[in-house]
């Protein structure tokens, strides 16, 4: 295949892939009558955004989502780092077996166990709280697996040098392993931000009030087919809800892709 064909295929695919987003943008910035009609000179309007912003407590949903995502990512970093450090640097009898047991969490995701986890959360009195949304995801096998890989590639000499200087296990972790695994933290962190910003089923079940619902769940009011579908409203709401994530990604996309390369997730 020559360069020309490759370009055509690549761009056709790219066009197809952004089409839904472009379409949403088109509908959101035009009056409702243009929702399914394409007219380059259709009048532009921001009214759809204003209407949506006033119809839904967006600011509150954003705040909830930010708190949720911050809580999940920070807790995961701490919990998974400690566990990964144990598996990578302090092997003991049965630790390989234990690691396999941890990996079970990768296949048995919290969603499969939602009936039982709902009961557990209810028993400890955390129904309809932000920690309740986060708890089942905190000991992430994916995180432990990735950090363990990263820690294993740290040269032993650096570890030994730090110990010779009298650093304890936690100091070695903090001064040697964590800094060297930075790309992994960045890549994993960004994936988790996107994952929990967008996560739907479990938050839907475990929350039922405006003060706890993340944005993905809060938006669901718009997709009720029963009241007739108002496309401009839906698309404006969609764009508003993903705007922070989209902007952040546009700014950080280079670092994001590079951190994936350097993290060597493969």
């Amino acid at each position, binding site marked *: 295949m020559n360069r020309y064909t*490759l370009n055509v295929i690549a*761009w056709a695919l790219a066009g197809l892939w952004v089409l839904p987003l472009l379409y949403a943008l088109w509908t959101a910035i035009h009056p409702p009558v243009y*929702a399914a009609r394409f007219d380059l000179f259709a009048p532009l309007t921001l009214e759809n955004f204003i209407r949506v912003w006033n119809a839904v407590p967006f600011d509150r949903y954003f705040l909830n989502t930010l708190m949720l995502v911050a809580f999940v990512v920070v807790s995961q970093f701490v919990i998974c780092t400690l566990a990964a450090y144990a*598996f990578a640097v302090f092997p003991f009898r049965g630790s390989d077996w234990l690691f396999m047991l941890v990996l079970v969490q990768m296949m048995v995701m919290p969603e499969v166990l939602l009936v*039982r*986890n709902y009961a557990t959360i209810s028993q400890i009195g955390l129904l309809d709280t932000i920690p309740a949304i986060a708890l089942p995801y905190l000991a992430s096998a994916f995180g432990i697996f990735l950090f363990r890989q990263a820690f294993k590639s740290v040269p032993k000499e650096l570890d030994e040098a730090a110990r010779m200087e009298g650093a304890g296990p936690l100091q070695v972790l903090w001064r040697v392993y964590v800094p060297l695994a930075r790309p992994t933290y960045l890549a994993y962190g960004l994936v988790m931000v996107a994952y929990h910003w*967008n996560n739907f089923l479990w938050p839907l079940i475990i929350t039922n009030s405006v003060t706890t619902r993340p944005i993905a769940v809060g938006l669901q009011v718009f*997709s009720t087919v029963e009241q007739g579908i108002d496309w401009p409203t839906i698309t404006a709401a969609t764009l508003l809800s*993903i705007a922070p994530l989209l902007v952040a990604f546009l700014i950080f996309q280079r670092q994001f*892709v590079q951190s994936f390369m350097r993290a060597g997730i493969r």
Partner: protein
Amino acid sequence: MMSRNARIALLLLAPAAVLLVAFTFYPTVATLIDSFHSTPRGRRPAEWVDTQHFQAMIADPIFRQAFINNLIYAAVIIPASMGLALTMALLVNARIGGQAFVRLAYFTPTILPMITVANIWMFFYAPDYGLIDQVLGLFGMGGNNLLGMPGTALWALIVITVWKLAGFFMIFYLAALQQIPPSLLEAAALEGAGPLQRLRRVILPLLMPTTLFILINAVIEAFRLVDHVIALTRGGPNNSTQLLLHYIYQVAFSYWDTGYAAALSVVLLGVLALIALVQFGILDRRIHYR
């Protein structure tokens, strides 16, 4: 007497262990136990009902439909999203014009919430004025309610899922592709290997660990991702888009039949366990980790 390593390791593992026991291992065992008990109602506690739920399941046409649908869903989504991801990664890696934009375009669906993405796609699929039906209309095949017809609804959802996942998997392939030493490919070219041969003999074998990693993720998503089912079809029409996890969700939280939901969960757990065994047992032996 514990070794020093074991003592430190166990302290470090404690927080993760507590959470894993509370939200993965205990609920797995509890679900298994629940599946042999009746649903507690009012003041009537759960009673041992033996395999009653499982017998009911075999006779349950919705369960059978959900099971078959989920197998079709997985069997299409996994190879389609992985194949597209590899194609995208190879394209982006091939020094095309506007590389950064193309890469961004492929990746955007990943950061969009499935629930809102589903709303946009619903517009695409709408009969008469939806984009797809308008195009079909040009060929005299309009008037289709793609999400409302049992024959097309599942496929409509499959397209959304593949669109959503391919860009995410592409990133992993791209990262792996860029780590293949160029000298290896040059050597292959010198020995007279064409582009296709280089792909088959050099690139694909080197990508095998990545492929396994993506495969695991794809399998997980094929059984986990039901957001768009909730947003678009609720399993309909006529249960043609019913998937296992969505059925569990409905039985548990719409009909509040937690006993039967537990039995359904056991089936889903069983499917996942079986796939995990196949993946780690058979595939792992054929992949050479460094």
